[in-house]
C-alpha cells in the first residue's frame, strides 16, 4: 500500500490549488458555495459561468476523457483531486450534469454523437439540465411514462419531468423517455439530448423549502427531437442512464467542502465566547467538533478508496453508494450540529449583520435535505449495498 500521490499528481494538485485559490477571490459577496446556489440568482450564475469557462480553458472539465474529445485521459484519482481543490475553495467549476451526460456518451454513444457533443462540452459551452424523474417515478425511476414516438427523422416527446435542477439557466436538456410503451420497466427507455429552446418545452419554477429557485418542472408538448440526438441505442436508455450515474462518485469534492466548512466552524468556535468562555472550550462543543472531524476523515479515506477502485472498475456499485449515503447524511448532520453549536445565532439568515458565517449553516440545514434524497435516496443506496455488496435477496 502507498497512500502518497505520484509526483505528477502532486504537481497537478498544486496547479489546481493555486488556480482555485485565485478563482475564489472573485466570488460574489454573498457566495456560500454548494451545487445549487449557482442557480439562485444572476450574480451567482455569472460567477459559475466564468469559473466554468476558465476551467474549460485549462482543459479541466474533461480530465478522464480520451484525448481525441478534448480529454486528458487521467484517472479518477486526478478527477477527485480536481473536485477536492475546487470544492475546498468553493469555486463552482464542477458541472455534475456534464459528468453525467459525458459518462453516458462515452460508454454508449456513437462516434458521431461523441464528435458532435464532447468537444463542445469540454469547452464548457453546454449547460445541461436533467430530465429523469417524474411525479410518479422517483426512486422507482424505471416506471417513468414520458412518451417518445418515432416520426420520420425525429421523435415526438410528450410528458412531464420534475426536479429539473437549473433548467431555467441551462441551454440543453437530457431526457429519458419511453419509446416502447408495451413494457413498463427498464426496457423500452431511450436517452435524448435536446436544445432547450426547441418549441414544446415549458419550464415551471418549483421553489425549494427556503424559497430558492433551483428546481423546475418541465412539460413536453409535442417536443420534436432529431434521432441523431439519441445516445446509445433506442430502447437502451436505461443503461446510458446508469452509466451516467457512474462518474467519479467518491464524494471527494463534497468532503473537501465539508473540511472547509469545518475550518470555518472551528474558527468561529475559537473566536466566539459564551458565558465568558470560548465556545471551543465548551466540552460538548469540543466533542462534537472532534466527532465530526472523525466522520469527515472516515469519508475522506473512503473517498480515496472509491476513486482508486473506480479507476480499476468503473462499474463498482456498493462502494460509491456507501460514499454517497455516508457523505450526504454527514452533511445533514454537520449543518444541523453547526446550527446548534451557534445557538440562537445559528438560525439567522444571511443578510443581517448578526448572521454569522454568511448564514451558511442556516441555508445548508435546509439545502442538505435534498442531498439525501436526490440521485438515489439514502434508502436506495443502502438497498444497493444490501443487494450488490452483500448479496441479500430482493423482495418482489
Amino acid at each position, binding site marked *: 500500500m502507498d497512500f502518497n500521490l505520484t509526483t505528477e499528481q502532486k504537481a497537478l494538485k498544486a496547479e489546481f490549488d493555486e488556480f482555485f485559490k485565485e478563482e475564489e477571490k472573485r466570488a460574489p459577496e454573498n457566495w456560500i458555495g454548494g451545487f445549487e446556489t449557482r442557480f439562485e440568482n444572476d450574480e451567482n450564475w455569472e460567477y459559475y459561468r466564468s469559473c466554468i469557462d476558465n476551467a474549460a480553458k485549462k482543459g479541466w472539465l474533461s480530465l478522464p476523457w480520451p484525448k481525441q474529445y478534448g480529454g486528458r485521459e487521467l484517472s479518477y484519482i486526478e478527477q477527485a483531486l480536481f473536485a477536492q481543490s475546487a470544492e475546498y475553495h468553493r469555486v463552482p467549476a464542477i458541472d455534475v450534469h456534464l459528468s453525467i451526460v459525458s459518462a453516458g456518451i462515452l460508454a454508449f454513444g456513437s462516434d458521431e454523437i461523441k464528435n458532435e457533443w464532447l468537444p463542445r462540452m469540454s469547452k464548457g459551452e453546454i449547460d445541461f439540465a436533467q430530465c429523469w*424523474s417524474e411525479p*410518479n417515478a*422517483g*426512486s*422507482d425511476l424505471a*416506471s417513468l411514462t414520458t412518451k417518445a414516438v418515432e416520426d420520420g427523422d425525429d421523435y415526438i416527446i410528450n410528458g412531464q419531468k*420534475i*426536479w429539473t435542477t437549473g433548467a431555467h439557466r441551462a441551454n440543453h436538456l437530457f431526457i429519458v423517455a419511453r419509446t416502447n410503451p408495451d413494457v413498463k420497466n427498464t426496457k423500452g427507455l431511450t436517452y435524448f439530448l435536446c436544445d432547450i429552446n426547441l418549441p414544446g418545452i415549458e419550464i415551471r419554477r*418549483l*421553489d*425549494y*423549502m*427556503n*424559497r430558492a429557485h433551483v*428546481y423546475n418542472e418541465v412539460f413536453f408538448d409535442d417536443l420534436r427531437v432529431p434521432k441523431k440526438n439519441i445516445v446509445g441505442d433506442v430502447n437502451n436508455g436505461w443503461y446510458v442512464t446508469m452509466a451516467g450515474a457512474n462518474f467519479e462518485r467518491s464524494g471527494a469534492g463534497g468532503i473537501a467542502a465539508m473540511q472547509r466548512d469545518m475550518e470555518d466552524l472551528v474558527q468561529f468556535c475559537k473566536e466566539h465566547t*459564551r*458565558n*465568558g468562555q470560548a465556545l471551543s472550550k465548551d466540552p*460538548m462543543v469540543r466533542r462534537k467538533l472532534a466527532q465530526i472531524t472523525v466522520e469527515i476523515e472516515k469519508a475522506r479515506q473512503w473517498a480515496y478508496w472509491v476513486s482508486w477502485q473506480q479507476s480499476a472498475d468503473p462499474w463498482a456499485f456498493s462502494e460509491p453508494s456507501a460514499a454517497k449515503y455516508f457523505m450526504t447524511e454527514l452533511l*445533514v448532520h454537520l449543518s*444541523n450540529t453547526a*446550527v*446548534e453549536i451557534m*445557538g*440562537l*445565532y*445559528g*438560525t*439567522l*439568515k444571511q*443578510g*443581517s449583520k*448578526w448572521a454569522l458565517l454568511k448564514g451558511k449553516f*442556516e441555508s445548508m*440545514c*435546509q439545502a442538505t*435535505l*435534498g442531498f*439525501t*434524497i*436526490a440521485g438515489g*435516496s*439514502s*434508502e436506495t443506496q*443502502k438497498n444497493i449495498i444490501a443487494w450488490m455488496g452483500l448479496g441479500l435477496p430482493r423482495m418482489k
Partner: protein
Amino acid sequence: MDLELTEEQQLLKNSARDFFEKELPKETVKELEVDELGYSTELWKKMAELGWCGLTIPEQYEGAEFGMQELVMLLDEMGRACLPGPFFSTIVLGAPIIMAAASEEQKSELLPKVASGDLILALALTEPSATYDPAGVNTSAIFDKDSYVLNGTKLFIHDAHCADYLICVAKTKVWSKPEEGISLFLVDPKSPGITITPLESIADDHQNEVSLENVKVPAANLIGKEGQAWPVMKRVLQEAAIAKCAEMIGGCDWTVETSAAYAKERVQYGHPIGAYGSIQHYLADMWIEAGMARRMTYYAAWCLDQGIPCTMEVATTKTCVNEAYKHCTRMGVQILGGIGTTHDHDIGLFYRRSRQAALLFGDTEDSLNKVAEEMSL
C-alpha cells in the same frame, strides 16, 4: 390518577383544531412568513373573541383563569397550525410577568387589554450573549431623577416590531451577582432612542434587534421591585419552555400523521412505500418519539399547575421534545422525498420551525446541563 384530558381540555383542543383548520390554511401561513407585520390582525381578533388571549388571565382582569394544562392544549393546536403572530410573546411571556410582578395599577391597566386582544407585548430579554442566563443581560438601566435610562442591545426579540409594549430586562445593579441585579421595565417601543431592526430566521418568526440608546423610561414603568426580577423570569422561562414544547408536540403529531398518510399513498416499485420495512420502522420510531414527547409535556404542565418545583421535569421535557421534533421533521422530509423539500409542501414549515424551537428557552445541551445539575453531578 387520571391521565386523560378533562372534558374541558378536550373541548378546547378540539375547537382550536377546528378553528385553525378553517381559518388558517397553510398557504396563509406561508404568505405571512414574508409579510412585514407577520400575522393576521383579523385572525387575532377572532382568537381574542374566543377568549384565548385571556385564557390564563385571572377572572378579576377579565380572563378565563385557566392553567398551564389548558394553555398547552391551545398551543399544541397552534403548533400544528403553525400560527404566526404575537400570541406566544403576549400570552406566554408577557402576561405572566405582569401577573407575577406588576403592581395592582399596572395589572388593572394591562391585563384586561391583553385578555381582550387589544394589547400586544414582547419580551426583550436576550442579547448578543445569546443566553437565557442573568449573566447574559448587559443592558443597563440607570436611575436618573424620575426615570430610568436604558442602554444596550436586545437580540432575537420576537414580535418587538408589532408590540404595544416591550418588557425590557435590564441590569440596575452592576456590582451585584447577576441574578440579583435584574429589573423589568415596561417600555414604549416608540420611545426616542429605540431602533427596531428585523432579523430573518430559518423559521420566519419575526425576530428583531432592539437597540436601546439612552432610552428614558418613567420610574412608574418599573415592573416589580428594582433588582428582584430574576425569580419571576426564571419561572416564566420554565413556563415558556413547556409552552414551546406544546407547540412542538403539535408539530410532531402533524408530521407523523402527514408522513404516514403519504407513505400509504405513494407507490414505488409496485407497493406503497409504507409497506417497506425501513419506512415502517422510521415511522414507528417517530410515532414513539412524538407520543413520549406528548406525555412528558403533559406531565411537566401538570407539575407547573400544581406548583411542584419542576426544574428537572422541565429540563428533561425540553430535551426530549427538542430531539423528537427535530428527528420527526427530518425523517418526515426523508419519507416524503423530493416533494418534502419544496416550498409548496407544508412540511418545510415544521422542519424549519423545529430547528428554531429547539434553541428557544433551553436547547438540548443547556437542558441536559440542568438535568445534570439537578442530579448534583
